[in-house]
């Protein structure tokens, strides 16, 4: 599983796509690029990349639209959202649409390559900021009758892992701190991602409603 992952880069700015390709040189194989929702759906179905690097904001619906259209034919397709925006609404929206991770465009090439590999392997990638959003969204106790403990609350361990991510620690460092393996750290983050995508906590569904993701 440690082979070079293949990606399609979807972004409406050519300069940015070129930059990403240059940065990933040698670490990730870039199969193709797309600059619109339409192009992206066609390219992904044609090239079948392991991971799609997806811009959140694009004319014609943005990353959320790409995920929705591609998922109809390729439900297993993995997406990593990449954006300059760190607006919680955008972030939560694209993750709830199905992206397995979210990183900001200021990320270094190596970190991005690591993130792509992690998404390829089915794990989740949280930037410090996304970890902060999630901690914020899942903060506070809910009335017992409204809680689905499976989805609506984070475990103490998950909180701890997220806290370290928010503080800028890498998975390896978090594992060392908590005396657990990197795999266990990844499992915790994936579990948080699942809750983030499926929980109906008010803070999350409100974001979704505001972005018109649910009726």
């Amino acid at each position, binding site marked *: 599983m440690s082979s070079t992952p293949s990606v399609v880069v979807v972004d409406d700015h050519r300069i940015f796509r070129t930059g990403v390709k240059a940065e990933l040189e040698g670490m990730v194989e870039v199969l193709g690029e797309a600059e619109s929702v339409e192009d992206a759906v066609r390219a992904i179905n044609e090239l079948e990349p392991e991971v799609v690097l997806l811009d959140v904001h694009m004319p014609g619906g943005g990353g959320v639209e790409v995920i929705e259209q591609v998922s109809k034919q390729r439900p297993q397709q993995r997406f990593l959202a990449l954006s300059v925006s760190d607006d919680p609404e955008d972030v939560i929206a694209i993750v709830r649409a199905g992206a397995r991770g979210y990183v900001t465009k200021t990320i270094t090439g190596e970190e991005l390559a690591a993130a792509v590999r992690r998404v390829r392997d089915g794990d989740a990638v949280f930037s410090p900021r996304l970890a*902060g959003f999630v901690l914020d969204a899942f903060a506070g106790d809910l009335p017992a009758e409204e809680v689905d403990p499976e989805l609506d609350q984070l475990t103490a361990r998950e909180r701890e892992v997220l806290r370290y991510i928010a503080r*800028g620690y890498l998975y390896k460092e978090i594992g060392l701190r908590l005396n657990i393996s990197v795999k266990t750290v990844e499992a915790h983050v994936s579990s948080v991602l699942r809750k983030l995508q499926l929980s109906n906590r008010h803070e999350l569904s409100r974001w979704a409603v505001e972005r018109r993701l649910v009726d």
Partner: protein
Amino acid sequence: MRRDSRRAVLGGVCAGFARWLGIDPIITRVGMVVVAIGSSGVAVVGYLIAWALMPSDAGEPARRRERRGRKGGWRIAGGVALLVISALLVFRQLNLWWSDAVVWPVALAAFGVALLWTLTRQEAEQEQEASEAEAEAGMRDADTRAMPAQLRPGTPAEPGGWWRAKRASAIGFGVALVLGAALLFLWAVGALNAVSDVALAALVVAVAIGLISAPFWWGMARRLGAERMARARSQERAEVAAHLHDSVLQTLALMQKRAGEPDEVAKLARRQERELRSWLAGGEPARPSERLADALRAAAEDVEETHGAPVDAIVVGDAPLDERSKALVAAAREALTNAAKFASDTGPVHLYAEIENGSARVFIDDRGPGFDPEAIPGDRRGVRESIIGRMERHGGRAEIRSEPGEGTEVELKLEGNGR
């Protein structure tokens, strides 16, 4: 014997008479009507004389006002119309007569005029009452002035909107009555026949002009709407342009001038990015002097600006800023400054704060060279005083974990006041 103004229908004569007799006023009223018809209206003259002569019992102005306010003009106007009819009948009986044709127009006109007149008077009275009540309320308590008019003590119970609508329709009805009476009179005396052709022609022309110009008015209304929208849009665009000009273009110009100083350029770009982000987010403006979360973010931005080292600040939760949390912010600023000074070459400094239930935890992490906290060198005396000492003075705690080559981690804790 006095007129009973509280139970009066017209002048209170019958009611006063009934009170004097100790019977229900209905009996005297029915009796009055019977007598009036039987005497072909002469009794009405008697009623009017009694109204003029009998003193009113109006001793309580407040009660009187209440009565008038509630009764409305309709009954009074109807009474006046009946009185006029009676008077006309009296004149006819007395052979002081010219034509039967005037009866209905005059009666209608009397009804309409009486309606308008009573309504106008009621309005004046109500205004007076309202201002009196306001003056009273003002003397009693300044707070009551802030209340909506309906809730103010002393004003009539009739709600404003409903009352106004009812009054407007009554006035319209009164005006229509008077106009109708005038037309009826003209028609009755035959003056209208000549006029009617002209009036019809004028009406037809007016309708035709209305139909012809309707599309023009419609188009004009739509154009006005479209223009207003376009104006709003261009105003918005102007605002955006002004903002971009003041911020982004200025920064870009500065960056071009300083192209040879990469640190300075990076600093400028980062500051501009932050400003643009907060502007785009369009949320409430930050209040670093009131909220702990904003104060921590502001401290991070300050340090970033002063030392040119990127600081990632993530704050979860919030609380109002008080003396203790101000100390927390100051300690965090000190820790950030140290990290920025000694560890800015190894990636961003991270500030993570968690504020919940009155407690706060702040972490400041860097990947710098680290140091041995047991042997704090002379130039880092600030750590003991400004971070550890300050936190302890305010009932908090500071822990510094660092090893040479392993970066530094500062944890600041402030427990709630047992609230």
